[in-house]
């Protein structure tokens, strides 16, 4: 079953092609994209199970032995991320049934979503650094189009910032890849790792590593490179914002973790204090941005930034516990934040607004929605025993154990309080507060039963996930800890790719 590794690329691409062929028939496209998303999830789940049983898998594109061809590798981290991404893809595909305007479908919403998934899965699975660039671009161009498609003023303003800043990142990434090739003469990540470990003098490597860090940092939206995110994410339709928030920045974080644990480990270890400083600042600036907002989608967008800080903290602490915690955190935040965005989408559909001043009375009128939102919000804020608590626990624990990173731990704790504060801000204003006279909730917009459930079921699925991995975290945590150990001692990875012990 070596070709198992190709399926996460082939399935979304085939689905996209099928959707393109069925261009005029939107009903058919919906069915195709649902089936494709479902198949992708199955393939990803099988892949994850296989990796868990057999260890790191690798396969060479075109059958050309590494480091000459392009290698696809699945270790636990990448398999888990593919699985989560596929799950999100399916959830959002269901949600899209209700929430996508005909205009979008007419212009290729479904194939674009599939291409986005292709880019995401490709980025997770590739073992070749230039190929990573290609998948980044695939993902990026699909996201550009999805973001700008509606053509409204806000979208245009958001898109221009998103596009320009991300293109800067791409240019830096590309330059870094080129220079790295000029130094090492290879593009295969495992091969690079092997060579850089053997070489004594670092030469220009730290500068190259900086270029990579900045390029990925922009994609991951860390401080002070995150500006494009709060400027643009909230302007897209809810399903699009959700998949962006769930996957795009996480791919940036994935790349940071992957490249810096595998290839530039020495540099990462040397920069530890700076990385932690970036993590702390990202958390604080992000959460303060959220606290300042009075509109649900903007508030949540700033939270994405803040949560990225925690992931970077896991990378900066560099212990198995912290890295395992960061991976768990990634799964958690994808589920919880997406649930919040989807719930916000329901609020928007039910009331026509997401502005806190105009909202109110939802707790009374929409108890189910209120419950889903509350659970997801508490999970995000890290209230035990929901998933966010365990995620934060590992990071804080690891920070305290290390004995000299107390400051970032204090920041992480403080930020989680501010997260709680900003979540209650939404909760109190949109749900608890009474309906606003002349506001939006006086006359709830009618939603057909089918549309309601097409939106509520995906939201509930994600909320249930945060509850489940919170109450019973062991299976996932065991996986994350194993994945972290694989990252920190990448011998298995290198062996799987090159067939030689490093």
């Amino acid at each position, binding site marked *: 079953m*070596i*070709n198992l590794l*190709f399926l996460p*690329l*082939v399935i979304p*691409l*085939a689905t*996209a*092609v099928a959707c*393109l*062929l069925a*261009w005029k028939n939107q009903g058919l496209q919906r069915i195709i994209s649902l089936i494709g998303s479902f198949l992708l999830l199955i393939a990803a789940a099988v892949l994850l199970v296989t990796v868990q049983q057999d260890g790191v898998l690798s*396969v*060479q*594109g*075109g*059958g050309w032995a590494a480091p000459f061809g392009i290698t696809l590798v699945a270790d636990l981290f990448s398999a888990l991320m593919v699985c989560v991404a596929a799950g999100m893809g399916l959830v959002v595909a269901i949600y899209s049934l209700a929430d996508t305007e005909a205009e979008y479908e007419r212009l290729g919403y479904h194939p674009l979503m599939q291409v986005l998934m292709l880019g995401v899965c490709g980025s997770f699975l590739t073992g070749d650094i230039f190929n990573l660039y290609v998948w980044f671009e695939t993902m990026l161009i699909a996201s550009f189009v999805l973001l700008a498609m509606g053509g409204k003023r806000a979208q245009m303003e958001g898109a221009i910032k998103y596009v320009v800043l991300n293109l800067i990142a791409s240019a830096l990434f590309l330059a870094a890849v080129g220079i790295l090739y000029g130094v090492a003469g290879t593009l295969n990540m495992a091969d690079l790792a092997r060579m850089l470990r053997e070489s004594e003098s670092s030469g220009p490597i730290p500068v190259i590593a900086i270029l990579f860090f900045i390029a990925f940092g922009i994609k991951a939206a860390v401080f002070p490179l995150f500006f494009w995110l709060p400027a643009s994410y909230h302007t897209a339709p809810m399903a699009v914002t959700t998949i962006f928030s769930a996957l795009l920045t996480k791919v940036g974080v994935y790349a940071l973790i992957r490249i810096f644990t595998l290839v530039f480990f020495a540099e990462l270890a040397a920069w530890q204090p700076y990385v932690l400083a970036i993590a702390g600042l990202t958390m604080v600036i992000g959460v303060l941005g959220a606290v300042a907002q009075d509109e649900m989608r903007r508030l949540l967008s700033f939270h994405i930034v803040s949560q990225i800080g925690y992931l970077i903290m896991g990378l900066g602490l560099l212990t198995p516990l912290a890295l395992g915690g960061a991976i768990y955190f990634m799964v958690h935040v994808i589920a919880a934040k997406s649930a919040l965005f989807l719930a916000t989408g329901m609020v928007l559909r039910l009331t026509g607004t997401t502005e806190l001043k105009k909202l109110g009375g939802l707790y009374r009128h929409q108890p189910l929605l209120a419950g889903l939102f509350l659970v997801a919000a508490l999970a995000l804020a890290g209230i035990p025993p929901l998933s966010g608590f365990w995620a934060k626990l590992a990071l804080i624990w690891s920070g305290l154990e290390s004995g000299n990173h107390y400051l970032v731990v204090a920041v992480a704790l403080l930020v989680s309080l501010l997260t709680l504060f900003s979540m209650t801000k939404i909760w109190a204003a949109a749900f608890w507060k009474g309906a606003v006279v002349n506001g939006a909730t006086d006359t709830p917009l009618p939603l057909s039963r089918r549309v309601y459930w097409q939106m509520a079921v995906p939201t509930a699925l994600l909320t249930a996930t945060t509850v489940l991995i919170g109450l019973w975290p062991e299976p996932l945590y065991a996986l994350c800890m194993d994945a972290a150990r694989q990252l920190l001692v990448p011998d298995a990875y290198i062996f799987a790719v090159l067939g030689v012990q490093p």
Partner: protein
Amino acid sequence: MSSIILSTTIRLLLPLLLLFSVFLLLRGHNEPGGGFVGGLVAAAAISLYALAEGVAAAHRILIVNPRQLIASGLLVALSSGVIPLMTGRPFQSGLWLPYSLPVLGHVGTPLLFDLGVYLLVAGMALLIVLSLMEEE
């Protein structure tokens, strides 16, 4: 735009250019050329035609929509990768016919892949150029 000289020249040039683009595609594996350049030349030929005869006329001689060109290009490229999968080999492995064909020479899935690239690039360039021209 509808100068008679341009129009006539284009009519004569169009088949030649298209033929040249296919030539570029086919020899690409051995000499300079390939799907990209071939596709771009094909697109250029039709764009010139559109310039001379109007966008509608260009659509007419294209028969298929540029979007369908893109879709079929992707389909061809993808299937060239999937065919080896069926035989249990890695995605995009080169499979070659054991004998040479006349004109085409040695044929294998990489050539099929290049054909996909050709179709897609032609479709892409046409879709962009024609939708920009349509706005005039």
